[in-house]
């Protein structure tokens, strides 16, 4: 009997410790976040204030991203892919080098554009000031924005004229760096590694299918596509190739990828004229991407 009581006390103590730890951890997180409510964002002439966005965040964002910004909102369980955990300070869509914080304007652009193939809509109906305030509020969730500065934005050289040679070079780059391993030999998102991919929180993630005509995750323009593979999508298996692909080659790859998409384009027309078909993977080993 005494032994049972002792065991019961142990269990109760353990439960209490765990509960208190959870409580204090939650409180500490919230308290730390509250201290960062003075966070600002700067987008062009706009200055956003985190404190001003509390109501806006509660109205529009909290259902998915959660009150603590940890991506654990009430709807998160129903959503695939899962909402971003802002506390990590890791963002897919950046103009900065991999592993660094995004510019305020990067987050602002994501808010306005929305993220295709996800539940994140375009929040363009909100006023520019509301979006700027929200950027500051998103930043306040992560201590990284206090201790670190955003990375340097990568330089996007002027886009050259698309030619048949550039398309062929782009195809060679696609094979050389083994884009096909994830995106598939024809760019259909069905490469040999596709089924095994997970994001940084170990959740399954699918590579982009160039043939379905949807918008890229981080923009619509050729420049956006250039940035996607030169900065990488942090938090996903998509690495930065800025150390392995020269700027000129990067534009060639942009042209080739455009030719794979179903929409009418100059690239697609040239590919048709020269009979360029999505190629089989080469045997050449790929260089290691920048992680």
């Amino acid at each position, binding site marked *: 009997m005494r032994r049972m009581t002792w065991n019961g006390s142990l269990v109760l103590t353990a439960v209490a410790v765990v509960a208190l730890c959870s409580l204090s951890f939650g409180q500490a997180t919230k308290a730390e976040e509250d201290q960062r409510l003075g966070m600002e964002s700067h987008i062009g002439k706009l200055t956003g204030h985190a404190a001003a966005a509390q109501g806006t965040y509660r*109205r529009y964002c*909290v259902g*998915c991203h959660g009150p603590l910004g940890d991506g654990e909102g009430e709807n998160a369980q129903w959503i695939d892919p899962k909402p971003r955990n802002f506390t990590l300070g890791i963002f897919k869509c950046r103009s900065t080098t991999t592993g660094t914080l995004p510019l305020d304007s990067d987050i602002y652009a994501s808010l306005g554009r*929305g993220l295709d193939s996800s*539940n994140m*809509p375009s929040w*363009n*109906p909100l006023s*520019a000031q509301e979006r700027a305030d929200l950027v500051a509020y998103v930043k306040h969730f992560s201590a990284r924005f206090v201790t670190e500065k955003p990375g340097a934005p990568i330089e996007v050289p002027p886009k050259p004229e698309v030619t048949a040679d550039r398309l062929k070079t782009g195809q060679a780059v696609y094979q050389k760096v083994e884009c096909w391993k994830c995106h598939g030999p024809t760019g259909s998102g069905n490469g040999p590694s596709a089924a095994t991919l997970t994001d940084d929180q170990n959740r399954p993630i699918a590579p982009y299918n160039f043939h379905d005509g949807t918008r890229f995750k981080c923009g619509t323009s050729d420049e956006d596509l250039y940035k996607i593979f030169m900065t990488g999508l942090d938090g996903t298996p998509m690495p930065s190739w800025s150390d392995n692909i020269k700027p000129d080659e990067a534009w060639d790859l942009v042209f080739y990828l455009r030719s794979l998409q179903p929409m009418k384009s100059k690239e697609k027309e040239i590919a048709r004229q020269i009979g360029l078909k999505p190629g089989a993977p080469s045997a050449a080993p790929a260089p290691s991407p920048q992680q």
Partner: protein
Amino acid sequence: MSAVRKVAVSSLLLVLFSTCFVGRAHAIPAFARKYGLRCSACHEAWPMLNYFGQKFKDNGYQLMNDRDSPIWQNNGYWPVTMRITPNWHRESTDKVAVDQAPTGQQQITAHGFDVGGLDMLSGGTLDKNISFLFVLSSDENAAFHFESVNARLDNLFGSPWLNVKMGKFELDNIVSEKRWLTLTADGGGFQLYHFVPVGDSNFLGQIGDNQFGLEWMGHSANDRTRLSASVLSTTDGNPDLPGSNTYTGFFAGSQAFELGSLGTQRVGFYAMVGQAPTNTLTSDGVPIAGAGFGNKTFSREGFNGIFYLKKLDFQVVTQHGSDDAYFGTATQVGGPTPLPAGARSAVWNGAFVETHYVYNPQLIFIQRSEWIRMSQQSIPGTPSNLGDIDNYVIGYRYMPIMNSRAGFAFHNEYSWIRQRGTAPDGSDLTSSSLMLGFDFDF
């Protein structure tokens, strides 16, 4: 009670009746379930839309991402929503014709527990850029009618400026009565959207009623600029072509602009111009459907605006209305009585201001003040203010549940209305409503 008084009282009761049973609607958790968003993403306070919700509606119930088509939904997903409001309410009218009253009239007050009608809504997309909506509304006795039934081709040729809708639908009123926040018998609807002058026989020009027709609507990519034009059957939304072969046009446009930290403001206009029959052929004395004749003209036009001052917003609507003299005097073309001497169009002006203080997405305070003034009576010599309306509403809605599956609001509201000269004794008729209810949808 004189014939004119009877008509007057009947008119007021009809207006009140019509505003009571104009379908409320359009807070649709089915959309929230589809997209995983809270009610508050689209609704300032459900069912009133915010700019994000308005854009969602204007895009054909689409977020314009790659998941708009229902093919992306689980097979078990069925886009249906129901809304109902059990409540306690008190209705009081100061002068009601009563046989037992020494003066022939007395105040009548009724109160007790009750229920509002049920709305069953289904809406969404049939495929990318093909959307639909139907709203089946009942009164409190479960007598149903189709409040809305329409399909819409969205973004034709990839342009947000080309959207075509056909069926029965709400007119493109940027200050929407279908997503109103007030629910009482006297203050539940906008009087301006249903106004009929005393003695007027035209009940087909109510911009608050859903109508059968074809609508073109276009908007800029960010929805800041909106334009629409509709051609409507002049039936006031009644099925089976009951009137004559007449049509009504409705036009609306608005422009939104940002005013720094105050918010996004919108100003716009609307105009309705139509013809309706004053008489009809009969068979054994029974009107023959679709055989109306003696068409005459009516019009409604005005400005509207939505203005934000941070947590405070103002919705403003003005109206200048006109009914042909035949309508104004309830005279039938080719009928037994000629148009009274000196008869002229019935003309009125009106406006309302509805104010919301959004304390937070779950608590909103509401007031509306509405005034309608006759500027020209059809029959010369009629008191100039006969039929004028003053209506005031205050209330609040507290929404403790507002997730992507359901909404629940505690609703408390008081309204007061006065119409000049329409009591049985010819004096002003005043009534008030008080309501406490549980308004919920799922």
